[in-house]
């Protein structure tokens, strides 16, 4: 059962997907559904002995197309609509062990191409208004499969957080004539204390307004709305800065740091969103090596985040973590 239920107080859609209660949960390594199917062994989701990168429809989707009719009748107040969308799984590699951090730079570059292709394909469908590419990494985030993978949710509506960003960006453009994100990048570069890494095309920073201690935004330096307008050099630079940020995260305490990675791009609703700006958000739950920041009463109940740390100090820690300089990042990554 899957349907969209309208939240009349917050004015946003809630996805009800009861079948997901039964989804695969941390299976033993021998029964990983994202591994290739080896001869005579357990048949996985992928009927091939090997692969580079594979994408498939989620077996337990929050949304699907065509969507079934809602199982309940709506009212004027409590609107319902079909959860008509697409949920895909992106398995980064056929190797079960490791994480995205362990992918080599060419593999990361390939993944950027796959993300771009999926964004173009899904965003081109007339019933899809927003394509969200994301990854939940680590048990502390609630992953149900250890195999390195990400997800793509193609929504029939623009999700509320993105809508809020669109509204603020449009407002800023109207007031100043400039892109909100371009101004944020300029402010971060002028100050410099919150910059974590940078290359020719992207800059990574713990932003002034960080809500999580080790929150990092990766901004494209050029004013792109989506990945679709990146040239070859920018795609390579994106792979590079992703690898740098991921290495820094893991080298911070010598652990595989859990995170939520979310790619924010313009909607695919056919409208012009030239005031919006491509960026990737990382939200690691850790506030120390062994302590987590919980989304608790104030955050969940009031929507107000409390960050127990200073962005300037956390950025300095990440900047010091290896690879620690731009020069060394290129040396390390190019081998």
């Amino acid at each position, binding site marked *: 059962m899957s349907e969209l239920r309208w939240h009349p107080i917050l004015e946003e859609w809630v996805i009800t997907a009861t079948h997901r209660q039964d989804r695969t949960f941390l299976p033993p390594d021998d029964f990983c559904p994202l591994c290739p199917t080896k001869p005579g062994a357990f048949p996985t*989701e992928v*009927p091939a002995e090997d692969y*580079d*990168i*594979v994408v*498939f*429809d989620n077996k337990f989707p929050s949304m699907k197309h065509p969507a079934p009719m809602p199982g309940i009748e709506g009212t004027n107040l409590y609107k319902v609509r079909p959860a008509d969308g697409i949920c895909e799984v992106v398995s980064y590699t056929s190797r079960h062990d490791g994480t995205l951090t362990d992918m080599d730079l060419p593999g990361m570059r*390939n993944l950027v191409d796959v993300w771009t*292709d999926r964004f173009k394909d899904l965003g081109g469908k007339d019933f899809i208004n927003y394509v969200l590419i994301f990854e939940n990494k680590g048990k502390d985030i609630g992953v149900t499969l250890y195999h390195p993978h990400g997800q793509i949710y193609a929504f029939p509506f623009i999700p509320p957080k993105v809508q809020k960003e669109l509204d603020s960006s449009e407002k800023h453009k109207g007031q100043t004539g400039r892109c909100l994100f371009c101004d944020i990048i300029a402010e971060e570069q002028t100050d410099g204390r919150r910059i974590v890494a940078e290359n020719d095309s992207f800059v990574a920073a713990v932003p002034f307004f960080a809500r999580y201690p080790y929150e990092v935004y990766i901004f494209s330096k050029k004013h792109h709305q989506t990945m679709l307008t990146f040239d070859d050099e920018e795609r390579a630079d994106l792979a590079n800065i992703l690898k740098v940020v991921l290495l820094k995260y893991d080298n911070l305490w010598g652990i595989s740091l859990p995170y939520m990675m979310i790619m924010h791009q313009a909607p695919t609703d056919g409208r012009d969103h030239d005031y919006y700006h491509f960026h990737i958000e990382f939200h690691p739950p850790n506030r120390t090596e062994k302590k987590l920041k919980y989304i608790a009463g104030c955050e969940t109940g009031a929507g107000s985040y409390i960050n127990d740390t200073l962005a300037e100090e956390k950025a300095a820690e990440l900047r010091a973590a290896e690879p620690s300089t731009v020069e060394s990042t290129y040396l390390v990554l190019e081998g």
Partner: protein
Amino acid sequence: MADAKKMTKQEIRLPDGRKLIYYTFTKQEDKKTCQS
């Protein structure tokens, strides 16, 4: 810099009707070797 490789897609349908796409990447040097 990591150079772009030739990307090919192969889409199949799983027995339950779900879509699955294999993305395969070929090095340009490999391509030349195959052609020679």
